[in-house]
């Protein structure tokens, strides 16, 4: 397992957002976490990335994450592509990508990978990132995360707010990364797409686990279909 949590908790003051989750991501696995708004999906990733305080056990590549700063986690290859893209709007596309390699100190390998995946970004590398379309900004956010040379790539709502054709492109990209054997942990509201993509998935409600299983199996599950897919 590249990532394993046990009784993982994230709280904001007295409000518990993640209430003791035990999840795992394998060495060569794509895992999805789905659930309604407020289920604790974003808090889970924020806790794993070290953006918010978390308690309980979390082991990444065999070592505990406890006490590690977010910068230290990025350095070890635990990389988050955050919700809402969070690119640097006034910097150029290239500067955004270079910043992705901030903790790596080398730009070359990441840049090659990003250019191959997103030729569009390569074309626009001198453009100010804030002027990119929503879909392009999402590409940039994923590209920036790849520049950190992730050994576990976490993505928070990568398809949020995108046009359907861009949603397809995002999941095609994830599939391409999956084929490059990068372990992926993706949080999504688009349950149908996420379950179809993932090897395994967890379903959260109110900060707790309600179901887990192979993505295709959950996709076929009647209770899941009615609760999360609206079918």
């Amino acid at each position, binding site marked *: 397992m590249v990532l394993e949590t046990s009784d993982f908790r994230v709280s904001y003051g007295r409000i518990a957002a993640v209430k003791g989750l035990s999840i795992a991501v394998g060495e060569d696995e794509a895992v999805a976490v789905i659930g309604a708004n407020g289920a604790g999906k974003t808090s889970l990733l924020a806790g794993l*990335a*070290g*953006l918010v305080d978390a308690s309980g056990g979390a082991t990444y590549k065999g070592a505990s994450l406890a006490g590690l*700063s*977010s*910068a230290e*986690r*990025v*350095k070890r290859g635990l*990389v*988050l*592509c*955050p919700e*809402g893209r*969070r*690119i*640097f*709007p*006034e*910097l150029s596309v290239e*500067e955004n990508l*270079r*910043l*992705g390699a*901030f*903790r790596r100190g080398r730009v070359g390998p990441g840049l090659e990978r990003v250019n191959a995946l997103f030729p569009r970004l390569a074309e626009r590398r001198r453009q*100010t990132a*804030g002027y990119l379309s929503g879909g392009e900004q999402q590409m940039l956010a994923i590209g*920036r*995360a790849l*520049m*950190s040379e992730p050994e576990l790539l976490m993505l928070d709502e990568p398809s949020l707010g995108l046009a359907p054709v861009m949603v397809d492109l995002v999941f095609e990209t994830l599939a391409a990364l999956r084929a490059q054997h990068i372990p992926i942990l993706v949080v999504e509201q688009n349950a149908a797409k996420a379950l179809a993509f993932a090897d395994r998935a967890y379903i959260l409600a109110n900060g707790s686990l309600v179901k887990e299983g192979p993505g295709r199996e959950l996709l076929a599950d009647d209770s899941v279909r009615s609760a999360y897919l609206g079918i």
Partner: protein
Amino acid sequence: MSILQAILLGLPQGALYGLMGLGLSLIFGTTGVMNFAQGNSGMLGVFFAWSVLAWTKSLPLAIAAGIAAGALLGVGTDRILMKKVKGLTHGGMLIVTLGLLMAYEGLALIVWGTEPLLFPDLVTLPPLIWTLPPSVNPDGIPLIVAGSDLFILALALVISLLFAAFFKFTKIGLALKARSQDEVGARVVGISVGAVDSLAWGSGVAICVVLGTLVAPKTMVTPGMLTTLQLYGFTAAVFGGFSSLFGAVVGGVILGVLEKLASLGLDALFAATHAANVNSADFQLSVILIVIIATLAIRPTGIFASRFKGKV
């Protein structure tokens, strides 16, 4: 006084405003905190430099010590105070830094007393005197730039260029820009936001100490020596757009020139209306306040505003 002479007087004055604005917007742009104690932080640094000077008799050493003390004060403010009140509203931040302003003033009074202290000029340069041909300068009075003004201009230019280069060519500079544009984005690429914030605070206050040592020979070292200048720096930064460092410096220079030109125009006006007992210098502050109000009313994001956010 000719218009050219007014501009020549306004430039170094404006450079001082610009440096004050630079420090203010460096801290505000990066961390989102408006430091109302900026001038007084710089003032403490100058007092410290004065003490080191009295003790060691070495001006370079004293100034280096003052700048270092200012940087330390800035980092300390960030680490000890600002980390604790993180996430406060703008109003809350204002109260906190206003409180600091008063505390620093009190501290200076307790430690160094109320007597204004003398501070020597950093360098003594001869003034520049130009006698321009009558076609350019009809009244025939030569243009003069004081030696200390030349030094201020040169230093302001060097500091601005150093910062521009730092932001353009270094990885840390890029990280600072990134952090100012999106904190979460900065954290997920592994930028240590705490370190970047401390850097902004340290260098922001250090600039203010440099500025303080520049004006100290004129104002003398007193607890209130930088209070007015802070207001001007504030205006420069508002004028230039708070998140743009370049804007703060240019805004300051424009402001300095504008102030002298307005004073020139008012002089002419008062002379024409025979109100000879009115001193135009009394109206300089009004000019500044009019600029601040006009900027906020017409273009609240400043003339060099950033395109994708409005923090103010």
